[in-house]
């Protein structure tokens, strides 16, 4: 319980730092936003470039698109609470157009547990693929902060076994020993995500997300569900809630066209 509280506290602190960083960002960007909208000046931000063409209703800008590579650090916190679990998750996302980002996540899980009743060993990999939709209205065209909702398709392959287990019966005063052989299973699920990513240093992002995972199909036998399905969570569950906290680095690679509606001149 105390550990839960401490964890909660540390996450809250991290969140506070993130929020603060965002506030600073918006203050810094505000005058820039005005200058872009009205003067189309070159700004101090390198990411903002010249308008490509003029039309009556909108201006087309290009902004730098690239690959954001991240590590989900919340998986290391999971290890502290569930010592039998070792998870590593890397994330990547790339901007497709103004609002849409393609996202992919790769991960590995190893589960190992041993007590007086049974021993368990399992390991597997997973991948999720999907898109994020950015709700945040940008203050500057080069701004990369995101408040997003996303959807993912997840697939996991897991191998697991129970090298030894015991079955007790008090009434029959018996103990039977057995083992469950190495078995492979696959799982498919859908994830719904809400989260944000904030550029705290140049090209360096912190982000958190909450996600609900809904199992679509799971090939594991009902008599022995794996303790952990990589990327999903507890085996045998229909749905699973999860929180992620990631640090990522952004590598600019290409240009993305962005349409900015032109503000109508005010009538005086």
């Amino acid at each position, binding site marked *: 319980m105390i550990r839960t509280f401490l964890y909660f506290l540390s996450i809250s602190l991290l969140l506070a730092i993130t929020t603060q960083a965002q506030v600073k960002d918006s203050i810094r960007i505000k005058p820039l936003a005005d200058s872009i909208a009205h003067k189309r000046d070159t700004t101090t931000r390198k990411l903002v470039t010249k308008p490509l063409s003029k039309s009556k209703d909108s201006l087309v800008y290009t902004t730098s698109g690239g690959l954001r590579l991240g590590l989900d650090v919340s998986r290391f916190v999971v290890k502290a609470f569930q010592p*039998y679990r070792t998870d590593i998750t890397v994330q990547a996302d790339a901007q497709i157009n103004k609002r849409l980002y393609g996202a992919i996540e790769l991960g590995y899980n190893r589960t190992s547990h041993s007590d007086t009743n049974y021993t368990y060993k399992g390991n597997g990999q997973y991948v999720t693929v999907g898109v994020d939709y950015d709700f945040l209205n940008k203050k500057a065209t080069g701004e990369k902060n995101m408040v997003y909702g996303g959807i993912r398709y997840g697939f996991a392959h897991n191998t697991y076994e129970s090298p030894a*287990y015991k079955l007790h019966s008090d009434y*029959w005063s018996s103990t039977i020993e057995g083992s469950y052989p190495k078995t492979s299973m696959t799982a498919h699920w859908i994830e719904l995500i809400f989260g944000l990513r904030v550029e705290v240093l140049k090209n360096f992002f912190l982000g958190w997300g909450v996600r609900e995972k809904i199992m679509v199909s799971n090939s594991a036998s009902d*008599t022995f569900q794996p303790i952990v399905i990589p990327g999903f969570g*507890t085996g045998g569950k229909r749905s699973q809630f999860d929180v992620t906290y990631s640090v990522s680095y952004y590598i600019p690679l290409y240009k993305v066209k962005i349409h900015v509606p032109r503000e109508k001149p005010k009538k005086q």
Partner: protein
Amino acid sequence: MKYLFLILLFTAFVACEDETKTCDQTLLADLGINFKKDSLDGYINKDTIWPKVTLYALGKDTILSSVARSSVFISLSPLADSSRFYLKLDSTKTPDTLTFRYTRKPNFVSAGCGFATFFTLDTVISTYHTIDSIHINNKEVNSSNDTHLSLFFIY
């Protein structure tokens, strides 16, 4: 919105608890039997309480000794594919012997509980001194607290 977020976070931490530490389900896969009084040739069946129920597996310890019961739970033998039980319902009644034939299967209940033996009933054989008839309601004997068997009596 702020509170909703806090609640969401808290549920996440609850979900993060060590699942190998606690066993929240019962590991006992007991066979449940209830007693029914059959009146009007099976048209009216009512639950009935027998005043002095004595129950044990042949050659094993006593489960119940002269107690009033409307239902009983018995633990099938995990060592063999059949087990036999002695059932006496009242001091004046002739005792019956119930023989169960079944298949056994180890089942992983949860990370905290480990494995338990689950049974699938195949046949129930009985003497019919006091028992009139037997009805199997559910063949799957797992950790759900179910009534697998109904014993009918005419008196």
